């Protein structure tokens, strides 16, 4: 996979004020941008005719509990023009609301619901921000690092009240 250097220059010129960091580890171009500008940047990249990054491959998050802005969201775009990918990331404080990307892509609907369910990131303007994968009675957000992984002990009549063990 290669990097589209023109697209890289293009982003740097147009959004110089919004870019916080840039990296191209293993030929993958990543921009960390200001969290409030993400939807505008995505819209611009989608509608730009020269590069046409109009396919949202994936939207996901990573949790860094020791940081002030603990949630790191990654938006991966793909362009059919030259088959290259580009990744935009934002860092979000817990409880800080992020604009939804559903205005640009329908597929962001379920992806954002998943991020909300497993990380607790709230998307403003999302049409149906409800749990999607976990059980309705489960509290907390399982993919946060401080949500401990537990092991359920096989229950018999003599130990049926034992709580699950934390790994």
């Amino acid at each position, binding site marked *: 996979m290669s990097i589209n250097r023109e697209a890289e220059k293009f982003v740097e010129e147009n959004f110089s004020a919004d870019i916080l960091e840039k990296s191209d*580890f*293993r030929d993958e171009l990543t921009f960390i941008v200001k969290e409030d500008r993400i939807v505008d940047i995505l819209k611009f990249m989608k509608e730009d005719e020269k590069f046409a990054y109009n*396919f949202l491959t994936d939207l*996901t998050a*990573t949790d860094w509990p020791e940081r002030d802005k603990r949630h790191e969201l990654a938006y*991966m775009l793909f362009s059919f023009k030259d088959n290259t990918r580009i990744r935009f990331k934002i860092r979000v404080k817990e409880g800080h609301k992020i604009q939804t990307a559903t205005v640009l892509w329908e597929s962001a609907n*379920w992806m954002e619901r998943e991020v909300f369910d497993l990380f607790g990131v709230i998307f403003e303007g999302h049409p149906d921000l409800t749990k999607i*994968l976990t059980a309705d009675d489960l509290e907390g957000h399982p993919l946060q690092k401080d949500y401990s*992984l537990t092991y359920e002990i096989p229950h018999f009549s003599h130990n049926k009240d034992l709580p699950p063990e934390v790994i």
Partner: protein
Amino acid sequence: MTLNMGPQHPATHGVLRVVLELDGEIVVKAYPVIGYLHTGIEKTAEAKHYHKVVPLTDRMDYLAPMSNNLGYCLAVEKLLDCEIPPKAQWARVCLAELTRINSHLVWLGTHALDIGAMSMALYAFREREHILGIYELVSGQRMMSSYFRIGGLMKDLPKNFNEEVQKVIDLIPSRIREYEDLLTENRIFRNRTIGVGKLTKEDAMTYSLTGPMIRGCGIPYDLRKAIPYSSYDKFDFEIPTREEGDVFARYQVRVEEMYQSLRITQQAIDGMPEGDFRANVPGVVLPPKDKVLTEMEALIFHFKIITEGFHPPEGEVYVGIESPKGEIGYYIVSDGSPNPYRMRVRPPSFINLAALPKMCEGGYVADVIANIGSVDIVLGEVDR
């Protein structure tokens, strides 16, 4: 009226529930409810060493285990920046394509069963047995093979591998033609699928569809051509596409893909290079078993890799491959520890399923069954 479809319906292979709002027999609103099979694989992977995540990936899309293994191994190899020997690459391509046929056969059988062609399911499962036989030959497992490992393969290909694969390649095309005779011109099948669940190119783009779903809408998006991985650029094959975007178009694309997969498999076994079956990266790839039993060095390395794992550089990679269902992508974030800090799987079935309401709304109840079948979902992957 509101109708709950599933989870026990035969059309929902597993645990999908679709809440339908009906007006007569017209679907006004469809709302898929998923999560009944949520296994927390992404969370579990964070507590395991890189090598030990491979068996977990098998359990997601259990009809195409080798594709999942391949995606994960490629992602970790990209993170480590290690070269894979050609023999391992060819073997991976060969088995990944057999996996595609395997997955498509189950899909064809169950999809036809949903629409009412009972015997198709039996025939398709009969042919799938031969491919499972190949799995068993190489790895000893019929389903959860975990045959691809980080750095290459679990063990060398058996001596009679090429002959056995050749037998499968010789057998399957005539059988697929038989299915086409049964279905393609079948009036009931055509009436149930043509014009049903239509999606336009714009829909395909906005719903991020991949795999046969997007190719059935006329967009020739196939990662084997777009971003070739594992030496796919050295193989000669075509990407089947159809313009109509309905259930029948997706059926045609998948059947044509099976022929193309057989072509690739034939090329893979004809041109199978000689050499090592895994990369020589000490500290990452396990040493050969016979050396472990006879040499102290190898034993120490083996012990260290199993107990401590290896430490990849800090960073993040995303690798997408073309699985039978669409683009399965692995996004791995490493913080330098021997466990993946975050492993995200981009599940093709999950994202394709999100387009189900779009396909069903305005159609008949009976078409919901055909639509669910044509998405080709495996709930193990949808829920992870």
